[in-house]
């Protein structure tokens, strides 16, 4: 009969669950856990420099692989620091198990040193959370936590473990089996046939695909549905990569920074086939003017998303892969020449790109050049801001899970640690982190982690010495009252990276920036590349927050 303490039970269960990497930081309240971890021969610990970094490293592993990843933090500030990464995972439905140390049970509720109500604070930003009362409970909580994180709509689960529970020794009969991810029940065939009929009878349908399709591993089925039915397809930020960006049926991203033709096409559609999306305001604009002529089919594994913001004509509660698989035999092979021709005309009338966008040194040029140099295998993480939207608009994504980006929470500081996580999960693939000077400074300490772990990531910093998207909104909506949106000092990011022991390059003032970029991306191991960007480069077109998606401003076609 196994006889172990709570900490040993946790570590051994992680091993049984197949966890090979844990990101975290030790502290007073989780030292027993680290003592047990030190004895593990199969789990590699990645010591982050800030708990938020640890959370995002775990996210980078989970987002790139689709597998539940694990992070550790201590009580108090350790826990509060990691909450942002959990909230981020919650909004983008990323499977994580976060294990935090807590003050001993006898001190709970006494304002003890480094005590915060981690359970209470994490409740609204996790799929589920636990405050463990005794070591024996870990035997049921741990497998359940992994099952919850990975099943249905994935999400983060937090387990808060008081120090005395970590050291409490229990004897037990046998190890619990790791719980398998729960399968989802299928909808009745009549529902599928109804939906298929709606698709077959529609004249101007559009597929609207999001992160849920990627979570379901349904990109291939989605593509087949689009091709079989001749259905033009838009993707959310979280859905980019479901269809290759050069696919003839791909209209790219919809919403606030979509191409003009995409939002205009949606205005004309008569059937919206939404799958794995949640009608986020950045995607829909003002919701009551979104696809005003369209009937709506909504496929989602989370029943509460169906009808939450837009009433539907048909809902399928279920896994997108299963739903598409069931639908495909009923969907007629069609070309839809008229509708696709109309969209093609919109794209000719309002071309997305112009030759001058690709002049050397401009954002789209740099993004496409990096893509050419790193190749189709590369994983791409971004931070949050202008660079993120430019990457979403211009990077040639070809695969789901190729883009790792903070969509729902929009967390600046996501990119660098997420790239580290992706590189840990896929050491053989190139990983590029597109960041901005504002975002990078929010988790810049993780440069140390990248160097220490000897991961292979290339950090491309689009440096406009400002909080670019904030400044853009001040320009457009606050009468150019630029306030607190640009930095008054120029930070030498290359020097900082070198200070952390990382190779660094600065394209500013380089006699041949392209040659330097090539050299930087060719170099094995991690490096940082500072790329100066004109502060006046904006993200266009733009739908003003709260406006209809057809109200696009900033580009040369804008009426205002």
């Amino acid at each position, binding site marked *: 009969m196994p006889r172990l303490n709570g900490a040993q039970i946790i570590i051994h269960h992680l091993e049984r669950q197949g966890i090979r990497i844990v990101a975290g930081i030790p502290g007073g309240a989780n030292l027993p856990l680290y003592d047990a971890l030190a004895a593990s021969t199969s789990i590699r610990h990645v010591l982050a420099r800030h708990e938020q970094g640890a959370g995002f490293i775990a996210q980078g592993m989970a987002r790139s692989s689709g597998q539940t990843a694990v992070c550790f933090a201590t009580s108090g500030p350790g826990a509060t620091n990691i909450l942002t990464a959990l909230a981020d995972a919650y909004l983008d439905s990323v499977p994580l198990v976060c294990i935090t140390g807590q003050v001993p049970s006898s001190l709970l509720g006494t304002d003890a040193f480094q005590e915060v109500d981690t*359970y*209470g604070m994490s*409740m*609204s930003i996790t*799929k*589920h*959370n636990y*405050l463990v009362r005794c070591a024996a409970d870990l035997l049921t909580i741990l497998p359940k936590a992994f099952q*919850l994180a990975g099943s249905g709509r994935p999400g983060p689960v937090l387990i808060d473990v008081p120090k005395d529970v970590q050291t409490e020794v229990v004897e037990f009969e046998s190890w619990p089996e790791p719980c398998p991810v729960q399968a989802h029940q299928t909808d009745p065939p009549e529902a599928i046939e109804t939906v298929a009929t709606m698709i077959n009878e529609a004249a101007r349908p559009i597929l609207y695909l999001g992160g849920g399709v990627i979570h379901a591993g349904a990109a291939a089925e989605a593509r087949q549905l689009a091709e079989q039915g001749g259905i033009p397809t838009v993707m959310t930020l979280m859905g980019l990569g479901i269809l290759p960006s050069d696919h003839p049926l791909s209209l790219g991203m919809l919403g606030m920074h979509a191409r003009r033709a995409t939002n205009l096409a949606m205005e004309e559609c008569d059937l919206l086939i939404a799958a794995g999306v949640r009608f986020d305001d950045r995607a829909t604009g003002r919701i009551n003017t979104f696809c005003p002529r369209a009937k709506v089919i909504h496929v989602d594994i*989370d*029943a*509460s998303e169906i*009808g*939450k913001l837009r009433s539907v004509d048909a809902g399928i509660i279920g896994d997108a892969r299963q739903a598409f698989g069931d639908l495909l035999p009923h969907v007629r092979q069609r070309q839809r020449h008229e509708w696709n021709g109309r969209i093609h005309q919109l794209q000719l009338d309002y071309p997305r790109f112009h030759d001058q966008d690709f002049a050397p040194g401009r954002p789209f040029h740099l993004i496409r050049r990096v893509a050419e140099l790193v190749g189709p295998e590369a994983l791409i993480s971004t931070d949050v801001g202008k660079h993120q939207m430019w990457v979403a608009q211009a990077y040639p994504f070809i695969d789901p899970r190729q883009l790792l980006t903070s969509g729902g929470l929009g967390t600046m500081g996501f990119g660098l640690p997420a790239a580290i996580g992706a590189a840990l999960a896929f050491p053989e693939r190139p990983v590029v982190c597109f960041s901005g000077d504002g975002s990078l400074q929010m988790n810049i300490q993780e440069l140390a982690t990248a160097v220490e772990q000897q991961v292979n990531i290339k950090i491309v910093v689009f440096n406009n010495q400002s909080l670019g998207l904030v400044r853009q909104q001040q320009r457009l909506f606050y009468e150019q009252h630029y306030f607190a949106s640009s930095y008054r000092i120029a930070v030498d990011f290359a020097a900082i990276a070198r200070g952390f022991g990382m190779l660094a390059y600065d394209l500013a003032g380089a006699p041949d920036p392209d040659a330097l970029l090539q050299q930087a991306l060719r170099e094995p191991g991690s490096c940082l590349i500072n790329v100066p960007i004109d502060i006046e480069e904006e993200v266009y077109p733009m739908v003003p927050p709260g406006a209809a998606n057809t109200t696009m401003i900033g580009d040369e076609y804008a009426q205002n």
Partner: protein
Amino acid sequence: MHRTDLHKPQETTTVNTAILRLTVNNHPGVMLQICGLFARRIFNLEGIFCTAIDQGETSCIWLKVDETDKLEQVIKQLVKLEDVLAVELRNDVRERISEMEAMMARID
């Protein structure tokens, strides 16, 4: 509020409210989960009564919910909570809940 108003069941229970009966795991965080859900999703919760059942393994929670246009969403979100084992719409006991409200209002 005039406390005396609460003695008149007809006035406190309008047709705009729905009665929900939840069966939940009985542990110290459950009430916080339920109340937190209502607070953060801006659902109106007009009354709550909770008691342990089933030898303390589970609890039964009666909720009086402002049923404007969000009841379906309220129920769907409640069902998603891992500690919520069952959600029943129990408008059939609306009058008895009103009696309980009136009784509680009389306790000083």
